[in-house]
């Protein structure tokens, strides 16, 4: 394992994606809270359920899935373009001729870094989502501060955290391995490189959603 390269990838994927993950999560949390408040309307369901729903839906579904769909676009296309560019500029050939194991040097650090860092991003995303929900509810007078906090603490299941982490690890592996494959084996010129980058995002998105369904079936 090439640790220096792995650390570089962790920085690129993790730190480099903080802003987009934060923004996406805050808005998703806020929208979820507003929509659920709208659905509740004047029903007899307690208002603090908004906090509970925002928490669970962020943990179980939205944080891992939306984060990884966003990362498939940002990180996946970046990886495919980087490796594809290296292939076209003969840099991968140069590594091979030097005797460097190209898969260990170029692919393994990316996958390892993603599998390690993306679950952390997903955890942060869940927190950002809840914060977004809180801001939307309290600022929009949908529910009081105390009620939202009561909802966040209600009916907590640790199993949901496990499901979130399993999803994030599986999705991280899928989105990086698809991107690495698309980039590493690209042939032709700039049009093919563009196609490889697009394929990396499209295929990863489909696989993430398929895996999401399978994990939901298995773990619920």
């Amino acid at each position, binding site marked *: 394992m090439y640790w220096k390269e792995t650390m570089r990838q962790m920085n690129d994927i993790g730190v480099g994606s903080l802003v987009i993950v934060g923004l996406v999560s805050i808005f998703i949390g806020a929208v979820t809270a507003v929509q659920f408040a709208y659905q509740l309307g004047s029903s007899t369901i307690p208002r603090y359920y908004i906090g509970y729903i925002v928490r669970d839906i962020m943990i179980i579904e939205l944080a891992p899935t939306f984060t990884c769909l966003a990362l498939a676009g940002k990180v996946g296309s970046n990886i495919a373009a980087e490796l594809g560019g290296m292939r076209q500029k003969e840099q991968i050939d140069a590594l091979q001729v030097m*005797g460097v194991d190209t898969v260990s040097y170029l692919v393994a650090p990316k996958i390892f870094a993603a599998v390690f860092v993306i679950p952390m991003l997903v955890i942060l995303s869940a927190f950002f989502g809840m914060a977004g929900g809180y801001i939307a509810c309290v600022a929009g007078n949908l529910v009081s501060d105390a009620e939202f906090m009561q909802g966040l603490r209600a009916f907590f299941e640790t199993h949901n955290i496990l499901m979130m982490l399993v999803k994030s690890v599986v999705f991280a592996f899928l989105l990086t391995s698809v991107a690495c494959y698309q980039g590493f084996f690209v042939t032709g010129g700039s049009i093919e490189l563009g196609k490889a980058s697009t394929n990396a995002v499209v295929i990863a998105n489909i696989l993430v959603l398929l895996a999401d369904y399978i994990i939901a079936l298995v773990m619920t």
Partner: protein
Amino acid sequence: MIKIENVKKQFGDQEVLKGISTVFEEGKTNLIIGKSGAGKTVMLKLLVGLIKPTSGAVWYGDINFTALNPRQMKEIRSQMGMLFQGSALFDSMSVEENVKFPLDMFTKLTQKEKLKKVNETLERVELTGSNNKYPSEVSGGMQKRVGIARAIILNPKYLFCDEPNSGLDPTTSMKIDALIHKITIENNITTVINTHDMNSVMEIGDKINLLHFGELAWVGTRKEVMNSDNDLLQDFIFASPFLQRLRDAANLNATRKSKA
């Protein structure tokens, strides 16, 4: 010494190399020349193991390189250096980091020792002081020099150059040729250059292999080029009308002298 034995390479229905056998000699600058599409790049890629031949074998000394698995190939590859057509420098690394890369990968030298070796190698290719520049900040000729520095920093036994003159002006091109030739002689290495640059042929070609549509059409030294009656070679070397006129003038002079 590198020997290739009856090497054939087929891509689908197209046979790119049609049973080539030749020897690349130690301490010499061996050239592979030929028109575009003759199979030069495929041959070079076969030599370094980037592609496998459909049949035939590549020998490094008494080791059949073709029969080795990727792990075993590493041993031979540790003795190889290669300059790629586009230099293949790593964009995100500085000149120093590019040249140091093989040392980082394959040696346990201290940073101080590595830096000393990098500076010595950069001095050898006349790039002293360019350590902190990035590939995008240097000219094509300088990129080639960095590529050469990276290729020779581990003192390889075999040096491969794919079109080292492509995209360079004639003066820089000659300097690169001279540098490669000098390294070949000083280090007594086996150098194989894939080129269609006539100046390279006449200046540094110790042994020249002419490929013509996948077949070896002619083998000889640069001294033998002028006197060869091989039509394919003559057509290739004297392709331009200017060179044809020079040749005719030289022949005319020779005829006059012999009559006198």
